[in-house]
């Protein structure tokens, strides 16, 4: 297989810029929904054999108990999920008792998560630290991994394009989440942040592998032009990049399809992120290095 990645680079840039702009617009207009991990609140889920109580029925009971209305969602065929303000244990028990009166509840199918505002704020702070630490560790990794490639473009340019690609890989899933949040109630929760961090760690490799090959080819072939070398390196690593991501995407797809409702959003976020990571390492990072090379007219 021989494909001229450099020739069509503007198409790929256009696609990625388009997607990134769309993401920014989506986040700005829709916003993202933060899960109760960060906002505080309570989520109760329960399954029924037979008919489910309606949202109105449930909310009228909540009002009777002197509570605010809940967002009631159906999950699968048998399960309902109630999202509400942070409630006390006593209220929780009252609600469960009411829910049990409203239909035949599957024994032991209940789950309840309640996060007080204190914990929510703490998690927010912690997650910021973790994201910052991850960024830092990846930056250090990039600085070390790329220091050897310095010809004909400075090593930090490779590093910078790697970071642009990474930014793109993590940004777009957030945009996807803005849409899913708007229409399907998907939230940014701790599992989603975990998925994004995993994408972060995983995606940088694909880029490193290609750059590594460029370095190898540069040192081996003194006569070929930079363009040829970038193209050849991309072609050589293409099957590897696609196949390794394919195996990961396969298991993630089975996790998405069969892994149950709790892991579904998590798997989806990884699928989008890792898919983009593979795309950007091939079609974005290396062509960007070449564009810089051309811009600075390093040919001469």
């Amino acid at each position, binding site marked *: 297989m021989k494909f001229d990645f450099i020739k069509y680079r503007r198409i790929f840039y256009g696609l990625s810029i388009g997607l990134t702009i769309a993401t920014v617009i989506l986040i700005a207009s829709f916003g993202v929904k933060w899960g109760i991990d960060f906002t505080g609140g309570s989520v109760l*889920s329960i*399954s029924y054999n037979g008919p489910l109580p309606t949202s109105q029925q449930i909310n009228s009971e909540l009002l009777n108990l002197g509570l605010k209305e809940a967002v009631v969602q159906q999950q699968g065929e048998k399960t309902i999920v109630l999202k509400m303000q942070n409630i006390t*244990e006593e209220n929780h*028990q009252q609600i*469960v008792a009411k829910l049990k009166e409203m239909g035949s509840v599957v*024994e*032991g*199918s*209940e*789950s*309840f*998560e*309640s996060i007080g505002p*204190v*914990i929510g704020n*703490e*998690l927010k702070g*912690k*997650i910021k630290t*973790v994201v910052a*630490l*991850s960024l830092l*560790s*990846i930056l250090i*990794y990039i600085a070390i*991994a790329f220091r050897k490639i310095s010809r004909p473009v400075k090593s930090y340019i490779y590093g910078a394009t790697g970071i642009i690609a990474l930014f793109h890989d993590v940004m777009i899933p957030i945009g996807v989440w803005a849409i899913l949040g708007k229409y399907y109630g998907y939230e940014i929760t*701790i599992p989603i*942040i*975990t998925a994004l*961090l*995993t994408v*972060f*760690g995983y995606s940088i*490799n694909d880029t*490193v*592998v290609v750059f*590594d090959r460029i370095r190898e080819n540069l040192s081996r072939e003194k006569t070929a032009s930079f363009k040829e070398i970038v193209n050849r390196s991309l072609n050589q690593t293409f*099957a*590897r990049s696609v*196949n*390794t991501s*394919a*195996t*990961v*995407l*396969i*298991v*993630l*797809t*089975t*996790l998405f*399809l*069969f*892994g*149950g409702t*709790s*892991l579904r959003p*998590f*798997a989806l976020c*990884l699928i989008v992120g890792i898919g983009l990571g593979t795309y950007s390492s091939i079609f974005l990072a290396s062509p960007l290095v070449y564009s810089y090379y051309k811009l600075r007219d390093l040919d001469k």
Partner: protein
Amino acid sequence: MERKVKNNLIFVGILAVVVFCLVFSNIPNKGLSFFTEKRMPEFPFKLGLDLQGGSHLVYQADFASSSIASADQKEAMQGLRDVIERRVNLFGVSEPQVAIQEAGGGAQRLVVDLSGVTDINKAIEMIGKTPYLDFRQQTVDFNAENLTFEPTTLNGRYLKKADLGFNQQTMAPEILLEFNPEGAELFRQITSQNVGKRLAIFIDNSLISAPNVNEEISGGKAQITGQFTVQEAREMVRNFNSGALPVPINLISQNTVGPSLGMASLNTSLKAGIFGFLAVCLFMIAFYRFGGFLASIALAIYALILLSLFKIIPITLTLAGVGAAILSIGMAVDANVLIFERQKEERKKGENFKTAMENGFKRAWPSIRDSNLTTLLIALVMFVFGSSFVKGFAVALSLGVLVSMFSAIIITRTLVRVFVRK
């Protein structure tokens, strides 16, 4: 066959048998039952609360409304931990875990993990009913119209036991408290300082009784006479005997999963794991034929090693951990892809088969190492974060990545060397 390759093959073979027996320990034990009474040790999987059902409760100690000096908070937390542990043990929870956690801003918390309880709500209620008992002395402010009290250092932490008694004159029920030696000494000091004044007994921050102190009381016994029925008194005694709190606590966060929901999550995630494994094997065989078949065998051994490690270490398996283990199946085969692709290339260059194979292994190694390094790096950062989902994910993922490197280098390599010849 070279001697080294032969040794490696034997090693891989033995390893495969051992991990198989560890994971499916019922199979060899069934076999053993025909010959001997002896059995292999069985290591069960340790399941997290989200997979077997259970409750994760976070209580915050409310030191603001208690009299405990900040220097004594640590000790009070120990006392609190013991009291709550005694409570949940009474309830018959299997392996309750009660841990003290220090949060930012000096907040002290108690994290209670209850698993395998059928009626978790009862357990939560039990903990909630633990009384907070403390003694307060009358303030010296004589101008105040009503009696006012200030906290003393004597509280539920020093309680040894409680009994139900009846006042000999009025026949009203009373609660007889007995302090431990430390508490007895405190009680003696407080009573000696407050002769002629009132000493108030508060339960859950409400005044129960405030008898007059006539003289110093040594011996560490006190009684509470209040306006309660025999029934109420009996319940209070029972509550006191399973511990009184040294400091009031508030439930600030909980995560409860019903047992059948946990079971369903376990089943669906296991199913996803098996399907994922099979799909990856199919993919590898379709793309790399015999090499892919060998990689699939290596992957099966990989999965067994990972599961054995989960059992032996043991690592508590949560839904996040299972997710990470499944993800790591995809990542584990990654190293094989790198090797096979590299071998293809080397062969294209016209190297003979054996050199191509060896070069493939050698040249693919830096990529395998680097690609796993960043994932490990991120997993390490996640681990520091400490929230249970993230932690469970990070531990299982790093373990998976480490085992996968071993499996690609040792197992696939050995299998390819032995079975692929031209």
